[in-house]
């Protein structure tokens, strides 16, 4: 049995007056062993980040402070040690890595400066030895050409490289505990897979205890030895990973796991006989950053869409799957003419939308509508919900009373109280705003709905609800859906057909079944292999209780 290296007893962290609850963390208990990865899972607002900051002594005092409990580490209570002692522990005995590697590194200092300062702040070491140590550790985190990386600035490295550099920075003094606060959330799924396996390897090699914070159960399934589940600042479940993942006890854990989409594609109704409603052919788009008048910025060329061909039938859900920069959003934007394609055609029935002028296009706009990713940016903060939903039909000539009437019906359809119509967007949660956005899109009674990462910014339980809503609406209204996502689990559950994009090109295109069970292209295979927790079979837990 491994000894405990970190023990949190009855931790309570207060929030300032006026926050939506009194405590960020409440009577929290946890212990971390040496040589294990303990995943702390929770949705946004669960207090997991604050708990981590409390361990590090990084709480934004005096507004947020630990008011009760103990954090025992190497024989002392971290909550009652002096600030200078705490400072000496940070970085040398307990380290932390963060979510956004671009902003977490100082942009005007080289990587070597930033790693070196950890060493000489805590230890005496001659310069030569420091340098050698850094090079060795960079090799250890699989960074090629360590010397070049050391002399680079953060903006010269890729996201994955930056995160590796951060990991090196955290491990350079061989700390006993590594706290990782959502370190892979901002990375592409393939990069994420590499970083996860790196953390696992390093943990074994350096005998570190890792406290890994995440919201993604797939990640938990991939690397966790033990799991702690947090809700509203409290610990609701704690145990071995296999136990918690396959036989969750607490209702909240059960609801969270039930909301995780399975990688096994569901069976879909046949659509082969349905007519094609949208056909995209030879779509091309190159983004040229031309350097401005008189050469202000340097020029760059990005091939966002290259000879893209796809088609959607009535009632079909076509998914476009890809990582960031693959061009999937660009294709969607070209279809609705938010972006002007360079060449190609988009046929809605007989009509090529790309050849129409803006004025001619207007009547056709009703037939294709879009739901966007960011629930906070997609609604005008200064308009009431009723106005937001009825604006579209009114622009197209529907009289105000009828438009408002339609708005109320739609609010009902998306599961919102009709009194919502009189409120402003900021009064709603992310999931509710997304429902409003869906209602707005449906207000024009489109045939085709394009959803650009509609659930990526939502918590997993809310995500499940919105996906369910979209499926219901699609079935009821016989909508065709173009669903863009980077999350293969979501794609497996929602889509009938999938197009996989890489660097602007569609590399594979087929039914969901085919793609998942028999991927042909190497990139598709790579993508599927990289999904965290792919070997985890989701337990069957019955229907999701809606909270």
């Amino acid at each position, binding site marked *: 049995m491994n000894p405990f290296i970190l023990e949190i007893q009855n931790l309570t962290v207060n929030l300032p007056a006026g926050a939506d609850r009194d405590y960020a963390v409440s009577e929290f208990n946890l212990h971390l062993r040496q040589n294990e990865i303990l995943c702390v899972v929770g949705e946004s607002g669960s207090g997991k980040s604050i708990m981590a900051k409390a361990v590090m002594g*990084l709480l934004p005092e005096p507004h947020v402070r630990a008011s009760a409990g103990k954090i025992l580490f190497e024989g002392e209570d971290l909550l009652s040690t002096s600030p200078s002692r705490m400072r000496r522990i940070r970085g040398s005995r307990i380290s932390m890595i*963060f979510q956004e590697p671009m902003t*977490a590194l*100082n*942009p005007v200092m080289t990587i070597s400066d930033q790693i070196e*300062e*950890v060493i000489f702040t805590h230890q005496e070491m001659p310069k030569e030895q420091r340098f050698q140590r850094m090079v060795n550790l960079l090799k250890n985190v699989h960074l090629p050409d360590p010397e070049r990386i050391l002399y680079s600035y953060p903006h010269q490295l890729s996201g994955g490289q930056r995160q590796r550099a*951060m990991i090196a920075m955290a491990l350079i003094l061989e700390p006993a505990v590594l706290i990782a606060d959502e370190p892979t959330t901002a990375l592409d799924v393939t990069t994420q897979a590499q970083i996860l396996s790196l953390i696992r390897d390093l943990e074994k090699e350096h005998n570190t205890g890792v406290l890994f914070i995440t919201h993604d159960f797939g990640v938990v399934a991939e690397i966790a030895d033990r799991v702690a589940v947090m809700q509203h600042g409290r610990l609701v479940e704690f145990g071995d990973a296999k136990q918690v993942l396959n036989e969750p006890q607490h209702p909240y854990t059960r609801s969270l796991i039930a909301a995780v989409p399975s990688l096994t594609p569901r069976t879909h109704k046949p659509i082969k006989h349905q007519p094609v409603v949208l056909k995209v052919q030879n779509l091309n788009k190159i983004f040229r950053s031309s350097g401005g008048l008189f050469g202000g*910025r340097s020029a760059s060329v990005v091939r966002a869409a290259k000879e893209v061909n796809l088609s959607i039938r009535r009632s079909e859900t076509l998914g476009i799957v890809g990582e960031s920069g693959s061009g999937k959003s660009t294709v969607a934007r070209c279809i609705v003419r938010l972006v002007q394609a360079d060449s190609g055609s988009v046929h809605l029935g007989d009509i090529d939308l790309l050849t129409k002028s803006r004025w001619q296009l207007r009547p056709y706009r009703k037939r294709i509508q879009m739901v966007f990713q960011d629930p906070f940016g997609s609604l005008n903060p200064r308009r009431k919900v009723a106005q937001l939903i009825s604006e579209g039909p009114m622009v197209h000539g529907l009289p105000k009373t009828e438009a408002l009437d339609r708005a109320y019906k739609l609010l009902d359809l998306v599961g919102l109280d009709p009194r919502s119509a009189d409120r402003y967007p900021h009064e709603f949660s992310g999931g509710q705003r997304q429902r409003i956005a869906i209602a707005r899109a449906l207000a024009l009674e489109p045939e085709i709905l394009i959803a650009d990462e509609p659930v990526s910014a939502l918590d997993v339980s809310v995500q499940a609800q919105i996906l369910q809503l979209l499926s219901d609406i699609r079935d009821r209204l016989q909508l065709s859906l173009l669903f863009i996502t980077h999350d293969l689990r979501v794609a497996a559950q929602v889509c009938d057909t999938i197009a996989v994009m890489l660097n602007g090109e569609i590399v594979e295109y087929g039914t969901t079944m085919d793609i998942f069970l028999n991927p042909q292209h190497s990139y598709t295979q790579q993508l599927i292999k990289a999904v965290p927790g792919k070997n985890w079979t989701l337990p069957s837990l019955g229907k999701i209780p809606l909270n």
Partner: protein
Amino acid sequence: MSIDRKRFRYILRRAAQAVPVLLAIIILTFLLLKLAPGDAAEVLAGEAGSASPEYMAQLRQRFGLDKPIHIQLLAYMKNVFTLNLGFSFRHSMPVLDLIMGRIGPTLLLMGTTFTLAIGFGILLGILAAIRVNTWRDSLISIFSLVSYATPLFWVGLMLILVFSIRFGWVPTSGMEDIAAFHEGWNRVFDIAHHLVLPAITLSLFYLAVYTRLMRASMLEQAGMDYVTTAKAKGLTERRITLKHILRNAVLPVVTMAGVQVGGMLGGSVVVESVFGWPGLGLLAFESLFARDLNLLLGIFTFSACLVVAINLSVDIIYTFLDPRIEVR
């Protein structure tokens, strides 16, 4: 590509961008000339009636005032490029010579002001930010607020009233005591003695600007993610403030400094006329009252080009401070 190569290319690009700006300045001056009441030749010759009719006829012919406007523009541009900015009859000297004679004192005043304002501005901004919301911060903030609201000419006059007239510590006007015929270091001290009040006057306003900017910049940087990382690494407060926050916070201040140069030149008109400091600003003031529009326009063109040159230098300095060159 290495940082140095990138920097070089960036500098070349910026220098190339300066050319159309210079052209635009000349065209603007030409348009202003056209806008002025009276014949352009009269304006160019200075006061109406000071020049002989033959000279006027010569001027008219030289500038092609009977020809269409684009020919006139070209002729004007040619003149400017050959550094012919016209002639001032009041001073009996070509405009360019006049300007070059007076540029020294203005550069001295501006250089001193720049150094004082930026130096103390950054210092005060840092002091205010690291002890934010304490009495020290409040004091510095109040001081900047008041300085920012005070008219330059009034500060100058009040400073003269107190320190020159009442206490007699510094002279009331001028750049040096001409009658004393100081030489070498004595002359330097004498000029410095005269420089004290004008420099303080002009710097007060910009000091306020930089203090507020630096303070805001420091506070903004202190909330950034990389500062959290630095704390998580166990670095000392001092190191975080000086090595991490400061190096990022100072960047917007440097950019702003470039932008403020034009304002400083404008301010020097007021300060120089209050203190009788014999620089370009005072020359501009004098040309106003002599109705010597040609001289005034010459000063305008010259100072605009000067600002372009200084902006370019500030840009170059900036590239040494911020490695993200291609991102800009």
